[in-house]
Structures are given as C-alpha cells and as structure tokens.
C-alpha cells in the first residue's frame, strides 16, 4: 500500500521532470507527458519478431510428450521446521540498488532479491544430478531433438501483489531482457544468442526452444524466471533510476517492504504469510523465518563481535583464523552450548582459485619459465600450515564437474630442484647477489602477482618466501577489487591471484578462459599458424592469454556438441592441454563451508543439501523464538547446555 503510494508519487515526479525537460528542449510529443503504457509497444515487438514469439493453440502441442513433475524427488528441508521469528544478519555493504538487472545490480545482496528467492520454472534438485522439481511450472516435458522444453504453469502461481503469473509474463520476460531499457548488454546477448523461440499455447502453457541441444539445454530453459508485465507497464528509459529502490513483485516467499529500506543502515526481508507456494511439496519446509533483518556492518571483526554478543544470529567461519583462533572449540560460548559450530561438506564445481599467468608477457611466454613457476609455488605449504590441511590442493582449473573433470591430472608439487631445472632451460642459471636467478642478459626472475583480495595477501607472502628458495621473486601487489579485476581484464597483469565463481553446471566452460578469441583479435591465420600482427583483446576472461590452435578447435567442437560422452572426452583433452601449457597454477579447493550459529537458529539434521555452499541458499533454517528466550535467560543465569560441534560429511568426496 505504502509502496504503491510512493511509487505513484514518484511517477508524478518523473512526469513533472519529463515535462520540464520537454519544455526546455522546445517541444515534444504529447504522448510522453501522459501516463505511459507500453502494452502496444510490447505487442508490436512480438509481431515484429514472429520467429521468436510464436502464438499457437493447445491443439498444437505434440501428443507424445513425456510430462514430468519431479514429485517423486525427496522433500527439501525438515518437516520439524516452524514458521516465525526474526533472524538478525548482516551485510558488509548496503545494496547499491534493489534492481537485479542493470548497472550495479550484481552485488552480494542479489541472491536475496533474485537467485535464491524468485522461483524459476523448475529448479535442479540439490541432492540429485540435474533432476528438477517444480517452481512456476507444475509440469514440463523435454524434447531433446528439437531442443525444446514445454511447460505448464502452475495456476496457483501469483506475484506478491496478487496478480497471477501467466504465459504473457514469460513473453514479456524475453521482451524485457532483449530491450535496451534495462542497460544490460550481458542479458541482451544471452537472450538473443541462447534462445531460439518462445511459444504460447494458452495462458498457462508455453514452450521455449534453444539454439543448440547441449546436454544441459533444458537446465537453461527451466531456469527462466518470469518478469511481471503488469508492473513494468510504464517501462521507460529511466529504468535504472526509477527502479533503483523499487521492489519488483516477486514469485518468491520474501519481499522487501519500503519501510524496511533504511539507506546505508539496514534492509529486511519479510515473509509473505499467504505465499502461493507455501504448502507445496518442495517449499513447505523452507523460507521459514518471518523476517530477516540485515544490518550494515562493514568490518568483519565488528560483525564477529556482534555475533558473539548475540546481535547477529550466525557467522561464517570458513577461515582457519575464525574457526580455530577466534571461535575455537573451547570458547566458553561454544562449550556452554550457546553457539553451535557446524562444518558441511558439499559437492559442486569449485571456483578456480590459483595463479593466472599472463602468457603474453615477456619471460612468461616461455613454457619453461611457467613450468618453473608451477614447481616454485608452494601451495602445499599454504594448505598445510596456513589452512591447516582443511583445504585440498586444486588439480585443474575445472575441478568438481564429475565425469567432466579430469580423473588423473595432479597439480605439480612444490619442488625446488625441478623448478631450478626448468628455469635453467629457460636461461636462468645463475643466482644474483640476493639469491634471485638472473639470465645472461641480466634479467631477474621476478614477477608481480596482483590480487584484489587483501585477505589473500597472507597467502602471497608465504608463496613469496618459498619461491625465493627456487630463485624466483614474487612481488606482491594488493589493489582494490575493481582495480585488480580491471588490470587482469585489460591483460596488464603478469600473474593474478583470482578465482572465478562458478554455478552448479553440468560441464565446465572453456571458451571464456581458454579460447584464442578471447586473447587476440585474429589470433591465427587460415592455415592455423600464428598471426604475427594479432592484437591483444581486452575485457575478457582469458586472463592467461591462452591461444592454442588445437585448443580452439576442440572448444569449437565442444560448443557445438550435443553428445555427452564426446564432450567428456573433449573436456579431458582440453584440461590436459591446459595442464601442459602450465599457465595456471592451481590453488586450493575448499570442499566445505563452516559456520557458527546461536542455539536458537535451527537446522535440519542433515544441515544442508548436497550443493549448498552457504547457509541461505535454500533457506532451510528456522528460528525457535522460545529457545532464544530460554538461551538468553540461561546465559544470564549461567546455565549451560551440551556443546554442539557438528561435522556433516555425508556428501564428502574422498
């Protein structure tokens, strides 16, 4: 109600502004001053793109479809969960916008606005391999041959403002993500290159067709989330400013109310008590907490203090520093059972954290220098002594993809003799007065490692001290995140310590990071030989500047392929080439996450589902308000409970 009022007020404001502008410009059409309605524009757009937007009748549905609804899959969450309570949490930065598209929208808070909350057609069951459970779609049918997914929308599905979700909203979604109103080239590109067409059969039946029938094409289609057409009726080029703090109606359980947005201080999610999916099989035990209040606490140390006070309900304890030093098992709050500690092992693709060596830089273009660096980087020591053996060594840039990951490649170990041998082949035979190798031209074997994470500086200082033994100097450059990312994207770095986050996908991507398309313009001539006049291509993720003709060809085939076994084979080949190329020093893999939470935050016994990498992905927890009162009272009176330190290793990979 307030939101609506506010919104109308703001509309008026926009109109006044627009009018002023028009006067200033000395004229304009009448239409723009009056309330805008883009329904006609949208319909015209559909009509102008008949290939993409197709209208058919239910009779046109193929008869032999195999409809699925995923109801045989196990429930999510715990039936013990109760609704209610308020959870107190924190964010390091106040979200820069409530939009989840457009500039600045890809922040840490987006998960709460979009990814983990809004329902797609169907979601992959976290405990299974690409088996889906229903979301907006109550059932769906996959047609492999035509790369099409047919979906029946759940007639119960409602937007948070009460409007039903219909096929029109999905049509509008395509219009929305293809339009330039949203100022988001990535989505423009994704929607225009990925999808072939969307078809409406009736208000609750649609089908979407992909351009290629990749083994996981249905994953991309079922992952579509609708956009509310009725809400964006007056969508205009002021999208970015106008929806900056506007909460878009959601299909999910949580809304952000206008009165809960306290700029720079706090923001809260509120559960819709009459949410349309609250009793559905896969949602009834989730989204339990009534309100989740996020206060802005910029410094992690302050956040931890707030957690210890009980002002924040749970806290991530991933680093050894927090897990062993700041909240050790013998901490009084843990021993008295007020705070529980949990470790959860998951199974999912791992972010490729490691040293990305820019092979276009002098010296680093030498294979032997790179191999020497591989042997001179003591990640083993970092893992053993800094991470206390909790983490594992990463072996390739694409670990954790099941069959698609390489079964046998192992990262090169720290080995001074091997490193020296390789450096010697590259011409670095003598040690200078400071112990660093020099070649005949007097060049020192010294490279700069750039990182945007101050927290990784400790790792770098260890690597540096160890590399000195092999006559290699690492200079450490800690920049702010944006600057370091830009540097690597512009290919200005020598070596970058970064990791790209990865979602749960069936097979790894290679084109982004290893195809010469992303390293140079016209890297190779027709006959496959190196184009000597090629120019560096910037702003891509190929931060190692990998340009190998053979690799390109495999990637091209891999992108085209729809044969799973062939893709597995190709994936292994590419990982082998990449390993031999030695341009990536694999870092470490964290195959778990750990956290501490106050006693009153309750979790299912199994704690989380297989791919869970954070505690709010599936919203399985609930707040026990009575227990909170009892705990606080007990703490006051010095009563204690059994200490709880759980290790959930049911999904641990050996």
């Amino acid at each position, binding site marked *: 109600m307030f939101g609506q009022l506010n919104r109308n007020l703001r509309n008026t404001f926009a109109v006044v502004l627009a009018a002023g502008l028009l006067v200033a410009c000395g004229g304009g059409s009448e239409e723009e001053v009056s309330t805008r309605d883009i329904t006609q524009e949208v319909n015209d757009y559909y009509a102008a793109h008949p290939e993409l937007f197709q209208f058919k009748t239910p009779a046109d549905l193929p008869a032999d479809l195999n409809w699925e609804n995923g109801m045989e899959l196990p429930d999510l969450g715990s039936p013990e969960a109760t609704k209610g309570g308020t959870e107190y949490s924190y964010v390091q930065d106040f979200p820069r916008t409530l939009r989840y598209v457009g500039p600045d929208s890809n922040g840490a808070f987006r998960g709460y606005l979009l990814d983990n909350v809004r329902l797609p057609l169907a979601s992959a069951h976290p405990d299974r391999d690409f088996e889906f459970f229903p979301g907006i779609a109550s059932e769906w049918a996959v047609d492999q041959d035509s790369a099409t997914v047919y979906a029946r929308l759940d007639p119960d599905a409602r937007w948070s403002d009460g409007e039903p979700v219909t096929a029109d909203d999905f049509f509008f979604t395509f219009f929305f993500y293809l339009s330039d109103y949203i100022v988001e080239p990535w989505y423009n590109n994704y929607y225009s290159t990925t999808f072939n067409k969307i078809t409406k059969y009736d208000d609750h039946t649609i089908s979407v067709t992909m351009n290629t029938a990749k083994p996981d094409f249905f994953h991309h289609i079922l992952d579509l989330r609708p956009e509310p057409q009725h809400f964006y009726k007056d969508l205009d080029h002021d999208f970015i400013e106008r929806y900056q703090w506007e909460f878009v109606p959601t299909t999910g359980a949580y809304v952000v109310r206008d009165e809960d947005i306290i700029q720079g201080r706090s923001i809260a999610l509120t559960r819709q008590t009459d949410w349309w999916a609250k009793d559905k099989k896969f949602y009834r035990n989730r989204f339990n907490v009534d309100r989740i209040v996020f206060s802005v606490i910029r410094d992690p140390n302050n956040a931890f203090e707030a957690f210890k006070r009980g002002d924040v309900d749970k806290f991530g304890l991933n680093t050894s520093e927090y897990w062993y030093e*700041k909240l050790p098992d013998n901490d009084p709050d843990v021993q008295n059972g007020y705070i529980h500690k949990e470790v959860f092992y998951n199974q999912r693709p791992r972010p490729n954290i490691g040293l990305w060596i820019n092979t276009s830089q002098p010296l680093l273009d030498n294979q032997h220098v790179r191999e020497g660096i591989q042997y001179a980087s003591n990640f083993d020591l970092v893992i053993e002594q800094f991470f206390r053996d909790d983490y594992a060594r990463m072996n390739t840039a694409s670990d954790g993809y099941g069959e698609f990951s390489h079964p046998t490649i192992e990262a090169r170990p720290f080995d001074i003799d091997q490193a020296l041998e390789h450096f010697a082949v590259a011409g670095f035979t003598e040690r200078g007065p400071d112990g660093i190798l020099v070649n005949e031209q007097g060049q020192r074997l010294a490279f700069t490692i750039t990182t945007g994470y101050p927290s990784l*500086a400790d790792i770098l200082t260890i690597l540096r001290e160890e590399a000195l033994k092999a006559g290699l100097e690492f200079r450490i450059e800690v920049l702010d995140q944006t600057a370091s990312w830009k540097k690597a994207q512009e290919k200005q770095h020598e070596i970058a310590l970064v990791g790209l986050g990865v979602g749960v996908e069936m097979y790894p991507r290679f084109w982004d990071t290893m195809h010469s398309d992303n390293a140079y313009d016209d890297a190779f001539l027709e006959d496959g030989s190196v184009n000597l006049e090629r120019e560096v291509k910037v702003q891509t993720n190929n931060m190692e500047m990998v340009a190998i003709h053979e690799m390109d060809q495999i990637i091209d085939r891999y992108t085209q392929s729809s044969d799973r076994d062939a893709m597995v084979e190709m994936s292994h080949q590419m990982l082998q080439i990449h390993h031999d190329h030695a341009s990536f020093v694999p870092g470490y893999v964290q195959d778990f996450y750990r956290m501490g939470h106050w006693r009153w935050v309750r979790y299912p016994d199994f704690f989380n589902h297989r791919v869970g990498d954070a505690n709010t992905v599936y919203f399985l927890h609930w707040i026990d308000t009575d227990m909170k009162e009892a705990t606080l009272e007990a703490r006051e009176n010095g009563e204690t409970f059994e200490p709880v330190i759980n290790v959930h290793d049911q999904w641990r990979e050996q």
Partner: protein
Amino acid sequence: MFRLTPETLKKLNRFREIKRGYYSLLILGFLFLLFVIGELLINNRALIVSYEGELYFPTYGEFHPGTDFGQSYTYETNYRELKEAFAEADEGNWVLLPLVPYGPNENHSTSGVFRPEPPSLEYRHYLGTDTTSRDILARLFYGTRTAMFFAIAFTVAVYGVGIAIGAAMGYLGGTFDLLFQRVIEIWSNIPFLYMVIIIFSVVPATFAVGTRIMILLVVMVMFSWTTMTYYMRTETYKQKVRDYVASARVIGASDARIVFKHILPNVLATLVTFMPFTVISAITAVTALDFLGFGLPPPTASLGELLKQGTSNLRTAPWIVTAAFSTLVIVLTLVTFIGEAIRESFDPKKFTVYK
C-alpha cells in the same frame, strides 16, 4: 654554517637542564644507533659462521647458498638450522646468531601451523608472532626504522622547501608574496591523504620498495610544505625591517646572504619549535597509510600493518596490538618531550608558564 653564539650555547645548556626532554633525546639517539646497526641485532643471517677453519660474516653483502656451508640446497642458508646441524655434527664449526635470529618477512612457525603465537623466550620470539608466524619484534623494529628515517627525511625536505619559499615570500614581498599566498591557499586545500591514496594507487608494484618510499616521500612533501611557509613568511617580514638587516644591506650583502646568514638564525626558534610536530605528523601519516592499506606493499614491515593485524585480532592475539601500539606511543612521546624541551629552551621568557 652557524657558529655557536653565546646565545645559542645558553639555549643548549637550558635544553640540557630540562631533564625530560634531554633524556628523551638520549634515548631516541640510542634507538637511532640501534636502527643503524639493526641488521646485526635482528636478522635471520648469522653474525659469524666458522666453517672448516674459515670465518664468514654473512650479515651484509651477498647471500650465501646452503652449499657454501656443506648443505644440500642452493638457496640462502637457514642459519638457525645450520647452527643445529653444526652442533650435532660437532666438527668444530660454529654459528653466532644475532640476538633475535629472525628476519622480518620470514614465516617461522613453531607448531606447524601459521598462526599468531604468544611471546616466547624459548623460541626467541620475544614479542610473539603475527598471523602468518612472522616475528613481531623483527617486524616492529624494521617498521619503526622505516617510519623514523622516513620522518626525518620528510622533515628535512619540508623545512627545505618551506624555509626557501617562506623566506622568499617574506623578504621579496609584493607581487611574489601575493601570488604565492594565493597558490598556497589553493594548494593547501587539497586533502593530502586522498591525494596520496590516489597517486599511490597508480604507482606500479614493479617499483622496488625503496623507490616507492621515495615516491611516497615526494608526494607527502608536495602536500605538506605549505604550513611551514606561513610561519617563515611572517617571521621574515618581522626581521626584514630591523636595523641589522638594513645595515647588512648597506654593507652590500646579497639577498641570499641576508636571508640565510642574518635573518634565518633569528627565526630559528620558531622553526625548531615545530620540528618535532612535523616528525610526529610524518610518522602518523605513514602509519595511517599502511593501516589503510595504501602504504608500502606487502610484505614490507610497517607499524600501520601491525596495528591493523592487531586490531583485527584483538581478542585472540593481544600481543600484536600491544607491541605496535606501545611502540607508537613511546616513539611519539619521546619526540613530543624533546619538542617541548626545545620550545622551552628557545623561549626568551624563561619563566612563562602555559595556563
């Protein structure tokens, strides 16, 4: 350049009478001496190695690979291990280690994991270790050394520029004075810390640490010389109209001679009074920059970096913040005491008290 006049001697004697300042100066002087010979006190290189009848002094100069002393590795000798190896072999070879046998960048864990370890006499980590098991005393010592030397260089530079321009403004007056006043007004309104941060964020990390320190110095001086000029200008104005300046001019002394030989000694009191505060502001500024992460690149030891580690491990490793904070307090207090004593001894009114 200046001969000690009876007047100056009197001031110096008075300075010596002010015990607090005098002893502070002695302590600080002693510290400086330690800083100069720092490598002999705190270092992971041995002072003396006696190997097969020959004496080696590895502290300064080129590194000695392990093979020099019969070890199997070609990288720099680990002298602590060498000492143990020699003791075990018992062949008459010996190693003399410095008082604190750790380098500032060396990760030395006594427990097999890198974590802050409390002070320990046994392992000679007298102030404990930091989060990646580096010796705090070593880092503190070298960090303070950098800060102190930096502060002195900074003070000299700021005074050089400030005195030259300020004196010129006061002495020449007229358009030059007017123009420079405006320039300074504008210049001094540029927030210095932000400028340092901006400039430092574009300085490439490939520069050696020494070069980076020099750049930092230049940038800081560029934005700090203005305050000094104003004092200098007013003082020069005051002195310029005095009879002795007129006489000097009549004799035919050049402008430079008048300013540096005649006027400068008379305004020294003002300048000297501000000196300690300039030193303090320099130390605080570099510490703040390091604390914010815009100072010297890791792993360079610095007070600010230690303070930062300390504050983020307040509960679990209080010895980090204690060590860094106490050092900062002690150094700043010593400098302040000296400054007060100087001010008092240069004050012509002997018996004034501040109310």
